[in-house]
């Protein structure tokens, strides 16, 4: 399953870090962060609990970029 989320991030390098962090999260098959439209597209693993995975994604992103935001 694929979902797109609106995000808030200040710089392109930070967006790249978020992308990496999201991809490391369990349950995420592939995540892409686009800085310009301020969007994150997440493809989940089969049978993953979307809201739990996204909470984890947000936590991991906050770790690498403290003032980023994902509107889940």
């Amino acid at each position, binding site marked *: 399953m694929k979902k797109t989320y609106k995000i808030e991030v200040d*710089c392109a*390098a930070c967006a*790249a870090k978020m992308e990496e962090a999201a991809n490391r999260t369990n349950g995420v098959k592939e995540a892409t962060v*686009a800085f*310009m*439209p301020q969007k994150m597209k997440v493809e989940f693993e089969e049978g993953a609990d979307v809201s739990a995975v996204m909470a984890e994604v947000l936590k991991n992103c906050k*770790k*690498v970029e403290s003032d980023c935001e994902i509107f889940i």
Partner: protein
Amino acid sequence: MTKKQKKVLVRIIVSAVLVAVFSLIPVNNPYVRLALFLIPYLIIGYDILRKAVLGIVNGQVFDENFLMALATVGAIILGEYVEGTAVMLFYQIGELFQSYAVGKSRRNISALMDIRPDYANIEQDGQLEQVDPDDVEVGTVIVVQPGEKVPIDGVVVGGTSTLNTSALTGESLPREVQEGDEVISGCVNLIGLLRIETTKEFGESTVSKILDLVENSSMKKSRSENLITRFAKYYTPAVCIGALALAVLPPVVNLMMGNPAGWSQWVIRALTTLVISCPCALVISIPLSFFGGIGGASSKGVLVKGSNYLEALSETKYVVCDKTGTLTKGVFEVTHIEAAEGLDADELLEMAAYAESYSNHPISRSLKDAYGKRTGKQIDAGRVCDVEEISGHGVSAVIDGRKVSAGNAKFMKMLDIAYTVPQNIGTEVHVAVDGRYAGYILISDIVKPNAGAAIAGLKAAGVRQVVMLTGDAGNVAEAVAAELGVDVVKSELLPADKVAEVERLLASKGEKERLAFVGDGINDAPVLSRADIGIAMGALGSDAAIEAADIVLMDDDPAKIAIAMNISRKTLGIVHQNIVFALVVKFACLGLGAVGFVNMWWAIFADVGVMIIAVLNATRTLKS
């Protein structure tokens, strides 16, 4: 400005004023001086320091915040209070400018692409009610008033009007619509009130599909973008380690040689290199350039599905075109009338049109159209009788009491009538009246008015070879190719042969050269996906084309291909300019900084100044 940006601006002003005031107050006690300068320093830098500490805690040591925190704290420890605070101040000014400029161009580009309708009008009890287009079910009748956007695809069930398609195609060619016509969402209703029965849900409508495509386009990153992200990942740690070495090694060497260590001098040089080496100019300007290029293209009616395709387009050396529907209109028209002696052209056309008036074959239709256009008269069915169609040959009929035969050369041979062999290329319709040869009419597919200019434009944009593929007969194809300036023609191809032909070209081209295929998207989906870049044209209303292609031209004007190539070349040009400019300035300053020729102020220029110039340069991609 957003709230966040305004807050930063206030902090910048307050701390700048404080720095200016404090540097004017003569304070001799160093501790009081430190305490005074710490106020503006913390006002401007507290968030950077916080992020730097959080970064270390979370294992993200070498980022920009860390660079800035290290450089400014180092400067303050060395007693350079003004410089330390100023570096932080300018860094924040640079960041503010960057976020403002990027936000502004982001909004500009989004506005350019903003064709999303906000509401749909539904009539209830004689009153118009605005509802969310997402809530409108298929088959609902919606009302579109003059000046409003058509929100959902549908069929006109009441009213006539003119639609402006420029938001979709980039060209303001008004289109007339009346009852029974299909309309596409995203067009603007210009004059009359329209009632439209929706045929699709909002999410499936043209406008949603296009928006989706454009918004997702920056998810597909170009090689340059990936390169820079990877570059930044290794670059920042490398710079930190280099700066550390610069701060420690020379003083240690000095000590070993028995000279004074000169710690403060080398630490300042190390801090300067840290400031210079911030990679933001590159990291921010490259995605911004691509975003601008894609936005600029979409305002011209060219949808690029990803930065990678925009990049590939600029490297295109081979363009393979389909003929029918791409370079030619795919509609048959009368191109030449040659009447035998004693007859005029209008009379000949009239005979042919009447003889063929009962047929619905494309050739007959083109004869009737040409007759209507040239003479302004309608076919009067009462003048024709005894129509007889001889399959594969032609038609004979009695018109105003004269026996007219119209058909191909075989038909004339069958009737034993001597005929003229045409000089030009096309489908021939020979006409004989009462057994005497009256002349011939040539019908052919019309070359699009911009096709020649489009191919010349492609050549000017660096395309080495333009290849035309067609299922048509050789002589027709050769004639079109010669007229347009196409380099290579392959004719009489079946759809499968087209794929094979493209495969052959792909195998023979150089590794860094790209091949683009241009088609109308109708039955060339396999070729579109096989080529490096598939370009589909005339996508207005054709979902198949939007799906299959990498670049979509919203109307069927071939000149758009050249426009798209020029935009892509300009975008890539700007990207390369920024990479070279930023790296040259930074490395030059780094080199000079390491040997002590660059002070902190130059370092600030090398960081913030270069970034501002690169961002301004990137915004040029919008204007094409």
